[in-house]
């Protein structure tokens, strides 16, 4: 080892102003030209460490060395000058702008005072070609599928001279083929000499991608090893301590009457990813129907119709035998619907409000949490504390703003809120995205429990293992159509679903 490591963390500590100790003296090195994975439970401090490296947060102790030299990374601009770029856990693209505008934001080519649109388009096209990540420079981000947005995020990160690329849970939103695709790109980037820092909760991905793995637990370094020297089980133990997780078990049970029926729903929409082209479905009480499909096949459209957000152009859907077309979101929720949205921060929560406010919202009109015009603040707080302990949410307390929680913990707050309404019909859209292994198993167990008690569940997930572990039946959505509805069982495998998901086969 003659060369200095490109990055060396030396006793990095971070104490947030609210007193949370997110990192407690973490030291390790990252070798140039490698893919280095960082694993840890929700709230372990992964994002915090990456934000420190990227200049978004300041360490309260320790030193970062780049190429052996101690450096002061005081802002993302400073990070950029060291060639460090980051793709965030939650996307930061501006939906109303085009792909090119987003990628070149702040570094637009100019002609006089105006932005040179032609040059901008060419630069983005060249960038896309160079890294082999195709993207339409003129498309509006709002209309792109999540996978496509992911590529734009990465291109944006690569648009300046990059030596180190940080990816904070880049695969959480991707289906397996999309993940494979991304991994091929990342291997390509490594060959081009770029060092990649990669955060993920999925050990399989870490195994497939990384050269080395570092594990964090509650702000402390718990392990650091070359991938060849460590087994998945060892990584899991380093991440979680001694506890073992039991994967949830689907038990056969009887179903009740049909709870949701969707008849030939058509949605013509500007954003292609939302389109529905005559979708019909049925879910009985106690049944979990999984929706498989590449992201952008109509999942978003289906959910927005079923939650009353948009009116379908044609077709109808029934809840408990009554037509629900044209019902408002409020009416649907009152009728027993709950919805765990895929978009945590635009739909699922308000980051500036407290954990209590986020956890109780929606139920606040019930007599349990209000009397007349007034809120029963103490009741709300008691309930929030109960949810925090039930869902093992790591947070400073119920009054902390949601923005002080780690990504996975914020998401657990949303899940806790939606599950606590004891719904008769639950839409769970990517319920365990970004959640660590133990917490994911817990949430999956809760979904199974709810089904056992008679809730009809529509489960949408990019994670086929999750889908096959929980669903009683799996419907495949492709280009706004249901291409197959299959009973779950040992015969149903990801390989069997693949052709339907890619539209190569159609059983409907």
């Amino acid at each position, binding site marked *: 080892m003659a060369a200095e490591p490109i990055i060396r963390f030396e006793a990095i500590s971070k104490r947030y102003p609210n007193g949370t100790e997110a990192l407690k003296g973490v030291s390790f090195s990252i070798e140039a030209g490698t893919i280095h994975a960082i694993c840890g439970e929700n709230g372990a401090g992964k994002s915090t460490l990456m*934000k420190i490296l990227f200049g978004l947060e300041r360490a309260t102790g320790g030193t970062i060395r780049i190429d052996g030299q101690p450096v002061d990374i005081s802002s993302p601009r400073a990070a950029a000058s060291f060639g460090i770029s980051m793709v965030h856990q939650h996307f*930061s693209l501006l939906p109303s702008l085009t792909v090119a505008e987003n990628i070149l934001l702040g570094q637009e080519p100019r002609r006089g005072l105006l932005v040179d649109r032609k040059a901008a388009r060419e630069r983005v096209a060249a960038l896309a070609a160079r890294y082999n990540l195709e993207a339409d420079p003129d498309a509006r981000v709002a209309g792109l599928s999540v996978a496509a947005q992911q590529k734009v995020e990465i291109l944006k990160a690569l648009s300046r001279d990059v030596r180190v690329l940080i990816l*904070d849970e880049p695969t959480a939103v991707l289906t397996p083929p999309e993940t494979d695709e991304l991994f091929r790109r990342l291997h390509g980037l490594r060959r081009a000499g770029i060092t990649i820092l990669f955060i993920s909760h999925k050990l399989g991905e870490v195994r497939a991608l990384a050269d080395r793995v570092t594990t964090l637990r509650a702000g402390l370094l718990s392990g650091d090893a070359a991938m060849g020297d460590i087994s998945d089980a060892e990584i899991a133990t380093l991440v979680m301590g001694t506890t073992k997780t039991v994967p949830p078990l689907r038990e056969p049970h009887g179903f009740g009457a049909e709870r949701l029926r969707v008849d030939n729903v058509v949605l013509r929409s500007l954003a292609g990813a939302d389109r529905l082209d005559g979708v019909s479905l049925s879910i009985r009480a106690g049944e979990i129907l999984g929706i498989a499909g590449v992201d952008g096949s109509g999942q978003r459209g289906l959910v927005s119709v079923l939650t009353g957000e948009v009116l379908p152009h044609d077709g109808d859907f029934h809840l408990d035998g009554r037509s629900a077309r044209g019902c408002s979101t409020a009416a*649907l929720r009152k009728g027993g619907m709950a919805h765990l949205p895929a978009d945590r921060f635009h739909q699922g929560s*308000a*980051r*500036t409000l407290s954990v209590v406010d986020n956890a109780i*919202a929606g139920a606040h009109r019930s007599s349990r949490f*209000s009397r007349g015009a007034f809120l029963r603040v103490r009741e709300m707080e008691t309930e929030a504390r109960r949810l925090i302990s039930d869902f093992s949410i790591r947070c400073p307390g119920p009054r902390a703003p949601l923005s002080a929680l780690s990504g996975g913990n914020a998401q657990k707050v949303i899940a806790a809120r939606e599950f606590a309404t004891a719904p008769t019909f639950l839409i769970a859209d990517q319920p365990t995205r970004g959640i660590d292994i133990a917490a994911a198993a817990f949430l999956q167990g809760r979904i199974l429990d709810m089904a056992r008690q008679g809730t009809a569940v529509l489960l949408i997930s990019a994670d086929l293992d999750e889908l096959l572990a929980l669903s009683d039946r799996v419907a495949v959505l492709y280009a706004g159509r249901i291409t197959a509805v299959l009973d779950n069982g040992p015969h149903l495998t990801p390989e069997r679903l693949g052709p339907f998901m890619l539209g190569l086969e159609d059983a409907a």
Partner: protein
Amino acid sequence: MIRRTLAPFALTVLVLIVAVAAVLIPVALATPDPIGMIDTFLFGPFRTFRHTGNIVEMATPAMLCGLAVALMFRAGMFNLGVEGAFFLGALATAAIVILVPLPGWAMAPVALAGGMIVGSSACVVPGVLRNRFEVSELVSSLMLNFAVMFIGLYVVNSVLRDPSAGAMVSYRIPADARLPRIVEGTRIHLGTIFAFLACIAGSIYLFRTKAGYESRIVGANPGFAAHLGLPIRSVMLRAQVLGGTIAALAGGIELLGLYQRFSWQGLPGNGWTGVVVAILARDRPLLLIPSALFLSYLQVGGDLVARNHDVPNEVVGLIQALILILVTASAITRSPRLLALLSGKRKEGHA
């Protein structure tokens, strides 16, 4: 816990001290008696009881206008109609006490109620436009303020004007309609107590009632409110009706508390002060009280300096402007929505 809540507070205080010092010291150095001037500015307001009273008098409309602004900002409505509502509320109150024959005891309550209804329109109309047609409440309320002013001045000139008075002012406000003074030796009136209570009530409304909770959710993230099925449009409108009503009432109270006649020749600026107060208080109703008192203290100090030293009154305006810039800069970085609104483009990445 205590340290956690005090940290931002301490920071704000520090910012304020810096802002005051940054303007005051250079200005003072340009006068023949720098020490005397700074002394007058900082301690003058407390040397006589009457001047200390002035602080409280001035803080009264500032608290109420600040409350109006805070309730609307909390709901995500950047409605600046407070200025117009304050003006119109005062004018309508004056018109009622002057034109409508009422028994003495009923004058103030009836006139204030009337003023509230008429004056609130300066906020309500932009609210309705936003509700029905998605017109930006920021733009429409700003424009409406000036329309309200010109209509108001026309009414003063053609209906309420006392020809025997030299200037363009209304007839005298009947003595029975005036709000009682409550502190001997000052002009502090009943409205001040009302303003304190209103700030407390505002805090209860925002944090302890269903309606306030819903308005905070809508203001924090409308997408979240939609997901929950909250009636977003009516929540937004409610905030603007409430804000307009409070601002208009503030105008009426100011008029009946301190004035002999309606004598404003233009927008009085109390609404703008309310915006500064609300931003300084970070839209927290209880913090409106200290921030209104603080800004009024600066104003009184500035007035004293202007009277006794050779310094223009605008210095206070300069300090206010600097405070506003420093405080909004930190307020903006805390509120992604405000940031998006103001810059249209830039947004912090967060993970």
